[in-house]
């Protein structure tokens, strides 16, 4: 066998092996997705999206309260996590020297890896216990705490991609550091920052553990932010471990809905990001 044939053969074998590995890596995802579609689609109907749950034994009913509840929780999480996270990211990228940013960055990296159940217990201790009952606010707070380090890290990274010569353009006109940051640097990174926020929200949307001790659950419409509220992941958990076939089917459908929403947000934000990178190259 001559050298060239040998090299061609090695090439073919190695590319097949890596392709196989890539395939194996996506099989679980495809399997989950397929299972959800098979088991969940039959329960997806108008009532599922618009009706409240019905007692066991009755047919029909939906999980409208959980859909609205999840939206409510994510909104609260965003209200808490986004302003703090973006401000923190701006500080790290634009104003930090060496000491404090190092500690904050380290803390943010650690916070991302804290098990979500621990964050739930933390929110239980600081919000639920003093108030005395579960609430949407506590759930939103827990999700917000999860959101915070992701948004901080992401904002900092996108601000750092803003080229030096853009900052200098503003400074050279006599603008101060703060003015330059707010009028030139942040707008230049805005799309990336927003995309990061959407991805972070998509990530915490499926969290169940932080809600167990905080938002808890509610079989009816949420009647105020200081009341317990239902959510999609919690609904899936409760329905999934129940003993009733009807609830199982609804859990599958809810999981399909949640995955679909997360998928849509992911794909959309990545498209936006790809377009931004392309336009940056032309500019």
């Amino acid at each position, binding site marked *: 066998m001559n050298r060239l044939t040998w090299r061609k053969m090695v090439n073919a074998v190695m590319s097949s092996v890596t392709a196989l590995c890539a395939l194996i890596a996506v099989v679980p995802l495809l399997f989950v997705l397929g299972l959800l579609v098979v088991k969940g689609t039959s329960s997806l109907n108008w009532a599922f999206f618009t009706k409240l749950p019905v007692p066991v034994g009755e047919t029909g009913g939906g999980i409208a309260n959980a859909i609205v509840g999840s939206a409510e929780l994510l909104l609260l999480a965003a209200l808490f996590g986004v302003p703090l996270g973006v401000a923190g990211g701006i500080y790290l990228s634009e104003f930090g020297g060496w000491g404090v940013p190092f500690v904050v960055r380290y803390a943010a990296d650690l916070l991302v890896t804290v098990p979500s159940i621990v964050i739930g217990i933390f929110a239980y201790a600081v919000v639920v216990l003093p108030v005395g009952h579960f609430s949407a606010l506590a759930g939103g707070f827990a999700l917000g705490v999860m959101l915070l380090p992701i948004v901080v890290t992401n904002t900092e990274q996108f601000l750092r991609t803003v080229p030096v*010569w853009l900052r200098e*353009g503003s400074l050279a006109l006599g603008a*101060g550091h703060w003015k330059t940051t707010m*009028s*030139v640097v942040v707008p230049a990174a805005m799309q990336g920052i927003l995309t990061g926020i959407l991805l972070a929200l998509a990530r915490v949307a499926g969290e169940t553990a932080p809600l167990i001790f905080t938002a808890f659950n509610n079989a009816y419409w949420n009647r105020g932010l200081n009341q317990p509220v239902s959510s999609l992941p919690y609904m899936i958990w409760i329905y999934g471990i129940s003993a009733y076939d009807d609830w199982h089917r609804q859990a599958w459908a809810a999981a399909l809905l949640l995955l679909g929403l997360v998928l849509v947000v992911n794909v959309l934000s990545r498209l936006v990001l790809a377009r931004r990178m392309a336009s940056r190259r032309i500019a």
Partner: protein
Amino acid sequence: MSATDAARLDVTQNLNPEKAQETAAVPEAGRNQPAVKIKARNVDFFYGPKQVLQGISADIRERRITALIGPSGCGKTTFLRTINRMYETVKNARADGELLLDSESIFDLALPHLRRRVGMVFQKPNPFPKSIFDNVAYGPRVHGLANGARLAELVEQSLRGAALWEEVKDSLHKSAFSLSGGQQQRLSIARALAIDPEVLLLDEPCSALDPISTAKIEELLFAIENRCTLVIVTHNMAQAARVADYTGFFLTGKLVEFNDTKTIFTNPSRKETEDYITGRFG
């Protein structure tokens, strides 16, 4: 004719006859010289322990174009960035010596005030992620110079001043990124002109542009010269010969020679200058 003479002749063909007249016979101090706008005496510059400029002394004349030439890393851009204290964005950077704008020390002026008087155009066109109008209006807004109709007028004047108005007057509210590279660079100049600076520093403003855009920028410099002192760093010696009244040659952190452009290009007093200009190195 030696090879050196031939090379010299080649560059001198670029010398601008009008420019040569303006500065004719000036080496002997004083005669018909415009006032000194920027006076440097023994300016040293350090990045941490590393000295990158040594004892720079020069008189930059008012409403004239001064070119700074020299090989990469010789300190010409650093000197430029000292004049508007842009170097302060770099940690551990430090300048020493006497550097006067009119008669005030540049190091004593408040930064916004200094940069209002001394504008800068960068190597890469750097439009802000805003509309064309908002790019030009940025400086006036920062300094609270104008608003409303007066601001619109100022933006128009500045764009006319940068020979860009006719091309963008119907698309003022489009993103500045929609412009071509050459247009973006003229936008950067318009943006700098909008706060009516006394001095405009240009750091290789044409190095990212094609020859046609470069020609436009050079024409523009002649037009701006009447209102503003210009200091331009360039790698292109033909450009220095074409546009500059005065030329300074930097080498390894020193200002080797500073004189009117014609003298530098036809009768340099230092061997290093001659070697660089005739293309023996650099």
